[in-house]
């Protein structure tokens, strides 16, 4: 079985502004790295072509008035917030990005591929039912999850490891007990949500698990949270599908965040998710690209790590260039793990009565 990569050169064309961090250049070096690694020709990789999501598919997640606003603003240009302007032609691009996530899920469900990575732009996890923001317009991973529910997946686990909290995704599924939203993100950071005490509401109480981590958190913090929280909870939840909001901005070179994950740490994190999917849901997993702004120094290495882990390739060479040593040492916070251990104790308190494994 192969790993699908949904990618299209059209994903490079979206630009709010030529100088914006979420710009065309973002995936150019990564595309070079993937090409040089022979990924597109590798028999373990199947390149999947995105289709534009339909208006109806977008409306599974978003309010009609918000979609009308996006569509109309896309004709002339518009503004959501200072970081998120609407350039002319945006609507077609967000439909293609959302469709990229849908193709990833559909291909996994159809058995065309074992798992898939939708390498789409623009990202989506800050977009809520009636709002955009943080470079996001429509919520690609939420639309994917809604399509999976319609394809018969009763329970879906979302693992969002973008450095910024996936406030849009949390909002959309906050009261939904069929979707377990888990998020590891930098605390005290944009968008300001994602406290460990935000645990869902109504029937969805307990189905939102936030794991804020301090600046400088590195590989051992992620592995700790995977082993102590995400793995056990996932087993108890027993999902039919795992959807990953794969932010690449936790890398220690990222200019818009302060975390310290390495390329090897990314590969190990994805390998954990792949192993979990293999154990719990016949390997069914789709990842959608979210943020990641270390376009030249980070993304080429972290993306290879993620894809190699998805495809079960040899991960022994996944690492950062050795010349990055000083950058890593500057970003790394040796006290982060102790801090996160405290957070997990808090999580056990707020979630212990819902999740046996945390009690």
């Amino acid at each position, binding site marked *: 079985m192969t790993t699908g990569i949904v990618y299209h050169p059209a994903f*490079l064309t979206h630009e709010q502004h*030529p*100088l914006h961090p979420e710009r065309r250049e973002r995936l150019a070096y990564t595309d070079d790295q993937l090409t040089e*690694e*022979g990924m597109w*020709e590798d028999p373990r990789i199947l390149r999947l072509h995105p289709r534009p999501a339909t208006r109806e598919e977008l409306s599974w997640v978003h309010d009609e008035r918000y979609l009308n606003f996006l569509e109309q603003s896309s004709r002339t240009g518009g503004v959501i917030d200072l970081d998120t302007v609407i350039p002319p032609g945006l609507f077609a691009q967000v439909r293609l990005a959302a469709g990229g996530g849908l193709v990833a899920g559909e291909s996994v469900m159809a058995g065309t591929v074992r798992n898939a990575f939708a390498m789409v732009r623009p990202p989506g996890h800050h977009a809520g039912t009636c709002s955009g923001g943080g470079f996001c317009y429509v919520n690609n991973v939420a639309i994917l999850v809604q399509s999976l529910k319609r394809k018969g997946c009763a329970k879906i686990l979302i693992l969002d490891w973008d450095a910024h909290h996936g406030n849009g995704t949390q909002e959309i599924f906050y009261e939904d007990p069929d979707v377990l939203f888990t998020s590891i993100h930098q605390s005290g950071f944009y968008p300001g949500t994602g406290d460990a005490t935000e645990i869902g509401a109504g029937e969805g109480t307990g189905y939102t698990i936030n794991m804020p981590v301090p600046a400088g958190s590195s590989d051992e913090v992620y592995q700790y949270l995977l082993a102590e929280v995400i793995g056990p909870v996932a087993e108890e939840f027993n999902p039919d599908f795992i959807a990953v909001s794969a932010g690449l901005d936790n890398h220690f070179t990222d200019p818009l965040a302060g975390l310290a994950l390495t390329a090897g740490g990314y590969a190990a994190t994805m390998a954990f998710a792949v192993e979990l999917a293999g154990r719990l849901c016949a390997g069914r997993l789709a990842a959608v690209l979210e943020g990641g702004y270390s376009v*030249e120094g980070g993304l080429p*290495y972290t993306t*290879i790590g993620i894809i190699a882990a998805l495809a079960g390739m040899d991960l022994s060479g996944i690492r950062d260039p050795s010349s990055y040593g000083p950058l890593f040492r500057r970003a790394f916070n040796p006290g982060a793990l102790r801090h996160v251990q405290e957070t997990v104790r808090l999580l056990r308190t707020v979630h212990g009565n819902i999740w046996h494994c945390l009690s």
Partner: protein
Amino acid sequence: MLFTGIDIGGTNTDIAIVDGDVLTRKVPNDAGLRGALDSLDIRGRLAVSTSQPLNRLIAAPPASVYAITIPGPGLPSPGSVAGMVNHRGDILEEIDPAAIRTALEEHAAEYLAICGKFSVRNPALEEQVRSIALSFYPPERIATSHGLARLDFPARRVTTEVNARVLEIVAAMVRTISGYAQDFLFFKGDGGLASAGAVLRDPSVLFNSSPAAVALGARYLTGRSDCLVVDIGGTTTDLVPLRDGAPCMQDVRIDGKNAFIRSVQAESIPFGGDSVIEAHLSPRREGNPMAFGGGRPTLTDALNRCGASIGEAARSAHLDPDRAAQAVRAYISRIAAGVRASDAKIIVGAGFLADHLIPEIGREAGVRCILPDHAACANAIGVAVSRVSLSLRVHVDTGRRRVVINGEPVHLHQEMDDDELVAWCKGEVRKRALCMGAPEEDVADVSLAYFSAYDVIRYGRKKERIADLQVAITPGITVDAK
């Protein structure tokens, strides 16, 4: 203008001299390349198609090739040593010369391939490894990968291993042929010509050039742009489609792996003039036909028994006439089936036995057939009348003030906008083709096969620009021969 073309096939070497008139000749391969060249009074331009030795080498069991790779971070690779070039062509990790010497001492092999990730953006590390390796291998047994100019490290590695194996043979050919004609050109698998210097940088371009040669020759002799060329050789009969005046190209895989080797699409049917007749016609060659001194009857002998007069026809008398007729019928119906499957409306005959077999194949397949004069040596004619083809893959990084053309860095002297850059690259490919001896008219039309460019933004400001493009002069018939 006078053009000489030589195509070294499996059994014979075909020679064509074209100067308005066409003169052709066949020389048996026993005499070797020198024998063929000795038989010529070379004037004008000499072009040589020599894919047979390479084809055999590539099909042979793998020779011992040691590949030193410089993979850096990412997917690991066998034979890896320290060192790293990144996607911008920056060296982020140096090689360790002592470790490379140890690796070379521990891995004795006949040939050495050196392949580093992103060497096409900066060949320095590959060159450093090569200079160390020169104490262990003769220069003509070492191939590096950067000249292949394309990203895709695994495919580059496979191609570099092929080049390591064939470089020495090609270099020896270059020395031999240069003794007869200083400025000769090689005929490549894509149907174009290239200088010896260019071929020595990537000898894999010579792979399987015969189908391209026969396609071009058939086009030259008939003026047909859309047809199926049926080339009847000694061992095989090749069906080569021509569309819009050009053969179709396909990727060649080596041991099931991707490589940067392309050749003309052809269906090779394993029957030809030398196929032996036992109870029936067999897809095997066991030496020459009896009419040419061989010991076993072949399709050629069968044609003699059906009324032809090929070679010493009397020697074919050994073959039973009924069996001969049956073998010829079997051959014709096998080839006609191939023609029918191709959907061709017109076939053009080529090869030594074309006169005797093509009309019958056309009749049975229900298609129109054309049998041009000199059909027997259409391949050598194709070689003679071909033109220089050349592709430049260019990577421009204004931040590094670097232009890399087919893996070789050049200093960027002046800033250019995108249009100026394309014009400059087109000028460069023309200049290089003219240096190989192409006439002005052949280089007038340069195509832009690929273009991609983006700005490098740092700290909210546009700092630099990166562009990748490919410009090409495509294969075809030289204007001077038209």
